[in-house]
């Protein structure tokens, strides 16, 4: 036990003495949290809208004014021909071209129907899909209003247009605030990346400068060295979580409905998994460069398959199976459940025990693969 304390003391001295690393550990994560949470948004806003109005009628102007009054669209230009509009689309100046054909209003009045053509820049398929929904909604509400007007106008008697109104009720994030979803997720990401990189690099660094050999010549026990080495990063991880939660609460006003103790309980086991992976990486690498590369490889896969940016439910089945091995997936799931839904321990017990299991397996492997003797 005394030996472990000497190692911990040494590690903390080194961490706090490293003038280059300190800001990376304590300042950068929170700048990232502030920037990413505001920037990484799935909301599609400021869609560059343009139109080709070949009709120049009251009906066409009314339709365009509907787009004008929408928050999602910015009318950047209008064109005389489709060809001209297409050119601007190719240049990336516009995202949407609404084409109103000749005789649009006349057809509406005589045939009670008319056609519109919409072109959407679909390089980002997801954004295009959302844009399409917005456009359809605007046109649908326009046509509904028009229908009721036309019926009144033509038949001379009031006819109630048939329509179905859906009123969605959004649970757990009822203002559909994107940040409510992203801030806890990004916090998970920061805690994970920092502890993984720091632990993987730390031991490899001792290998590089030769001090690990000196340590291996001492009668120090494997578990003493590993606990002493990883404990400081475990503390750092919890510290980052704490500051992150405070920022989430004070800056982003993210609700913390559930028991915060549950988040800490889960994180303290979760960090063991991540630190175990870091140790594992450092056992199989010789230089910080290799360790960095491998740690990156794992983090990218872990992040993209975590449900942080894309819901796990919309992944193909095989990919969903893979995510079951991803510790970040459980952390993202649990922090959102506890913070936003107020989940109790019974709700998160399954992922919690899975993470406990991983902690034992990974650290078992890591300790086994750490060799004082070659």
């Amino acid at each position, binding site marked *: 036990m005394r030996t472990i304390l*000497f*190692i911990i003391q040494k590690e903390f001295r080194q961490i706090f003495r*490293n003038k280059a690393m300190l800001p990376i550990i304590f300042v950068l994560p929170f700048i990232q949290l502030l920037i990413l949470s505001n920037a990484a948004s799935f909301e599609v806003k400021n869609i560059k809208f343009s139109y080709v109005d070949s009709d120049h009628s009251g009906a066409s102007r009314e339709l365009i004014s509907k787009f004008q009054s929408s928050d999602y669209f910015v009318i950047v230009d209008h064109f005389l021909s489709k060809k001209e509009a297409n050119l601007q689309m190719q240049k990336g100046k516009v995202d949407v071209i609404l084409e109103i054909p000749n005789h649009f209003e006349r057809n509406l009045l005589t045939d009670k129907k008319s056609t519109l053509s919409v072109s959407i820049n679909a390089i980002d398929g997801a954004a295009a899909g959302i844009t399409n929904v917005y456009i359809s909604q605007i046109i649908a509400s326009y046509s509904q209003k028009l229908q009721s007007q036309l019926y009144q106008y033509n038949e001379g008697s009031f006819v109630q247009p048939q329509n179905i109104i859906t009123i969605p009720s959004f649970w757990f994030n009822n203002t559909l605030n994107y940040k409510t979803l992203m801030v806890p997720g990004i916090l998970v990401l920061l805690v994970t990346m920092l502890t993984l990189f720091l632990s993987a690099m730390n031991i490899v660094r001792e290998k590089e400068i030769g001090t690990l050999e*000196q340590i291996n*010549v001492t009668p120090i026990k494997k578990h003493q060295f590993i606990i002493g080495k990883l404990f400081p990063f475990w503390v750092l991880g919890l510290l980052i979580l704490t500051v992150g939660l405070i920022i989430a609460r004070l800056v982003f006003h993210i609700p913390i409905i559930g028991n915060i103790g549950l988040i800490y309980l889960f994180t303290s086991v979760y960090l063991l998994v991540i630190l175990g992976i870091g140790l594992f990486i450092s056992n199989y690498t010789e230089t910080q460069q290799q360790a960095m590369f491998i740690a990156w490889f794992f983090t990218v896969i872990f992040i993209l398959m975590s449900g942080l940016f894309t819901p796990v439910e919309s992944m193909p089945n095989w990919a969903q199976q893979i995510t079951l091995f991803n510790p970040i997936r459980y952390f993202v799931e649990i922090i959102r459940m506890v913070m936003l839904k107020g989940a109790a321990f019974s709700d998160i017990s399954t992922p919690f025990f899975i993470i406990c299991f991983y902690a034992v397996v990974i650290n078992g492997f890591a300790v086994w693969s750490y060799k004082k003797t070659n």
Partner: protein
Amino acid sequence: MNQEKIISVKNLSKVFGDFTAVNKISFEVNKGEIFGFLGANGAGKTTAMKMLIGISKPSSGEATVAGFDVKTNSEMVKKSIGYMSQKFSMYDDLTIKENITFFGGIYGLSKTQIKEKTKQLIQKLQLETVADKLVGSLPLGWKQKLAFSVALLHEPKIVFLDEPTGGVDPITRRQFWEMIYAEAHKGTTLFVTTHYMDEAEYCDRVSIMVEGHIEALDTPANLKKQYNVDSMNEVFLKLARNIE
């Protein structure tokens, strides 16, 4: 001289794939002796030494250090030895005092022992003015003397020194060897590798390794007589040339 054997090695080998780095070496080291372990670069010195200090597993053969088998009891071996590697291996980002505290601590010294040792050591090396400076800011010669003293902190029976004076100026080298002699006088055994043949002359006995074998082992005086030359330098060149 006390003839108690503190290191005994029998047919010790280390094989990496199809390359035999150390090929069936056998020798013994007496207690309190300064044993020079010589050889050209790549002759297998460091590999052999790593087996003796318990951080490399022998492929075959036997070795006992301070009475413990290096294969089965390497952790007990580690308690009885000190080691100073050819690469400076203290923490550059810790101060002299902090390094002493750390290494003393992991060898199990008590707080008062650490305090006392720190005081003694700093006084002996005349490092009072820089005791709270980072080790990284010290000149190499000072670092090496410090590393040697730290390797002695837990009063080991044997100290292994792997090219301790590489890159150090002649005055510091002389001082370093004075420290080695002083330690040998206390009864500590010193196992030293070096490339400086004048240093080989200071050893009680030397062995010369060539391509994984021990080609010669005797006192410097006997070796010079045997090869009919005036200096250890010539002994070394003769042995190395024979192979070529």
